């Protein structure tokens, strides 16, 4: 059948099972939006306040569901507003397809109104991108975009379409999605070598990252560690792969990781890195990190091998594929001495002093966890609250903690929470933010209100730019340059102005009371949680240092 370019966009989305897209219309996107109007029974379009919010929403949708997130925008500023969102997805390997409209081909290169060279701008932050100025290239580009976004290590792809293409006619037939690029073949010898080293380990540690979630290998990871009695440390991106109830889960590793995790890395004789990339927030000093260990690495991306830390043995492949093949050869083991040692480290966790008239962030996180079920999805922004959420929430399941790991994007949270809620309407979604992060993109409150999304936003409010403030306290002689903005924003009133519900809590009892109310609400709720600005994220290993220099209080 003959279709217009805009119909091709809609049909290819349907071919890929896309029923939800996030975006914002504009001049060059008019044809596409006109078609979305006609397809509204099959494709739901969520209009955000700002394109950045739409990109984060598509990202949050992908993280919560494992499906591809789709974001749509117009040319020029619409396209540039996506950039932070695309970069966020790129750093965390999230499958995202961004579709941007551009000016008609006849105007390309003439600095036309709202013209921008978005394929150039997004070149280093996408896996690949396409500039489509011929109708016959449109369908192949769109189909390829979904294939590339989901093949191997996942990531964002952008398709830029000139306006004339969106109205041009072309022959079209519906087809299933293209086959993904085959996974790298796991090498038998690599498996044998790695298994042998694991079987001979006395003090093993598994260092797991976001790759375990991307490869849906959580069950296999759990099998491995149970079978071989391997303590586990996780990156921010792998939060929830192991339940917090699991004794072998030592918690977050790295800069704000637990003492137990960082000590275990330091003392281990074998480290098995699964889908993790030895980032500077984990292997802060690559020369001294895991100094006693033989390091093994399994990753789907060949370029991650030996990038930051040199490893003894590696296997390039999908984590799940690797584990399924390796597990039968892994010996059942008990490392009594090592096990007891690391678990003892774990028990010396930080105790915070409870007070009736003061609320510690840890208490908020604990209380939050206790008041919701295990299916609840937590979405964070970036900064101190993010670390407290990672450290103190009781994580039970994977894909239930959504956070900007690699790029550390303040303002990520609200959009991502909206995306997560659209992807999983049956799950409770809680957005944890700080007063500074929230100020960046709180405009998305209007989106939550318009769509009647019962997202609870917990604002950990210390009235400062907490994480930077903490560094200034520790390393800059308490010279608080531009971290104490003296804002007078009243979040309770502001929530009301947006048509949401706002509460404030200064003590844990107040928090519990308003949280009970919030859980009953059918629309968005904000809870402004007032905490002390001197509250720090601990433990803390300063940049470039090792566990020797860990600050615990």
């Amino acid at each position, binding site marked *: 059948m003959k279709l217009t370019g805009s119909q091709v966009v809609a049909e290819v989305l349907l071919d890929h099972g896309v029923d939800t897209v996030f975006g914002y219309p504009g001049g060059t996107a008019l044809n596409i939006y006109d078609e979305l109007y006609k397809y509204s029974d099959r494709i739901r379009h969520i209009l955000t306040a700002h394109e950045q919010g739409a990109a984060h929403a598509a990202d949050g949708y992908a993280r919560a569901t494992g499906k591809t997130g789709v974001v749509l925008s117009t040319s020029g500023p619409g396209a540039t507003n996506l950039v932070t969102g695309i970069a966020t997805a790129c750093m965390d390997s999230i499958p995202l397809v961004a579709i941007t409209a551009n000016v008609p081909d006849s105007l390309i290169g003439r600095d036309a109104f709202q013209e921008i060279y978005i*394929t*150039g701008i997004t*070149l*280093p932050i996408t*896996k*690949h991108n396409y*500039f489509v100025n011929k109708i016959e290239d449109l369908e192949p580009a769109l189909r390829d975009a979904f294939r*590339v976004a989901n093949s191997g290590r996942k990531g964002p792809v952008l398709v830029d379409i000139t306006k004339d293409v969106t109205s041009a006619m072309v022959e079209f037939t519906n087809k299933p999605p293209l086959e993904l690029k085959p996974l790298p073949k796991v090498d038998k010898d690599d498996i044998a070598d790695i298994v042998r080293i694991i079987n001979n380990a006395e003090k093993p540690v598994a260092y797991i990252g976001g790759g375990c979630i991307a490869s849906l290998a959580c069950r296999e990871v759990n099998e491995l560690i149970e079978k071989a009695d391997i303590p586990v440390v996780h990156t921010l991106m792998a939060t929830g792969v192991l339940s917090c109830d699991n004794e072998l889960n030592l918690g977050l590793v790295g800069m704000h990781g637990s003492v137990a995790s960082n000590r275990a890395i330091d003392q281990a004789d074998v480290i098995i890195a699964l889908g993790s990339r030895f980032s500077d927030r984990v292997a802060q000093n690559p020369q001294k990190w895991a100094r006693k260990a033989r390091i093994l690495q399994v990753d789907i*991306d*060949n*370029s991650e*091998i*030996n*990038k930051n830390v*040199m490893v003894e043995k590696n296997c390039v492949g999908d984590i799940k594929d690797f584990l399924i093949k390796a597990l039968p050869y892994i010996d059942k083991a008990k490392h009594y001495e090592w096990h007891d040692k690391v678990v003892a480290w774990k028990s010396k966790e930080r105790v915070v002093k409870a007070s009736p008239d003061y609320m510690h962030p840890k208490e908020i996180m604990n209380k939050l966890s206790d008041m919701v079920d295990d299916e609840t999805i937590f979405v964070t922004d970036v900064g101190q609250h993010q670390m407290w959420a990672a450290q103190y929430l009781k994580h039970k399941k994977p894909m239930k903690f959504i956070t900007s790991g690699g790029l550390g994007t303040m303002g990520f949270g609200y959009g991502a929470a909206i995306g997560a809620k659209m992807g999983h309407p049956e799950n409770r979604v809680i957005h944890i933010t700080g007063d500074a992060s929230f100020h960046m993109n709180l405009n998305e409150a209007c989106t939550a209100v318009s769509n009647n999304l019962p997202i609870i936003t917990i604002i950990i409010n210390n009235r400062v730019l907490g994480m930077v403030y903490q560094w200034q306290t520790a390393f800059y002689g308490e010279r608080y340059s531009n971290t104490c903005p003296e804002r007078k924003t009243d979040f309770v009133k502001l929530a009301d102005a947006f048509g949401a519900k706002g509460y404030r809590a200064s003590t844990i009892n107040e928090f519990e009371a308003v949280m009970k109310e919030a859980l009953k609400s059918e629309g968005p709720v904000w809870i402004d949680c007032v905490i002390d600005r001197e509250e720090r994220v601990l433990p803390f290993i300063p940049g470039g240092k090792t566990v020797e220099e860990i600050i615990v209080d």
Partner: protein
Amino acid sequence: MYKPLRKEIVSVLVLNQANVLTRVVSNFGRRGFNIDSLTVSATNDPDLSRITIVFNATEQSMQQIITQTEKLEVVKSIFILNRENSLYRELLLLKVNATEKERTSIKEIVDIYRGKIVDLSRESMIIELTGTPEKIDGFMEVISAHDVVEVCRTGITGIESNARNAKKN
């Protein structure tokens, strides 16, 4: 663990499309590699182009840039052109001021290097020379005794003498 920098030459087979050079070069740029020379040319396959890149790297960083470049959708294959089993060639065009008196001695040098004088005016001449980079370097060294005004070098292009690496897929 870190080996000193050495000059490396890689050959990249890429799809023959717009923007491909930018993608490859930008990848080098953002990983902090400074490119010494670069040539792009058509191949016998109209769908593919070849990019030859000369740059400095340590062994570890070499591995990194190769695996990072391999990931690009437009890259079909990338491989190191080893000195041992590859041929390198470079073309030089050089303009030198030469009065009538100097012509003979310059011609003598050009002949020894089996170059060609391709343009001649009353004050200057243009010399064309093809060869390995070392040969060009050697010629440059000798000719520099004269008044060299302009130099153009194409950068290295190279080929494996045994074509087993020519295609990845």
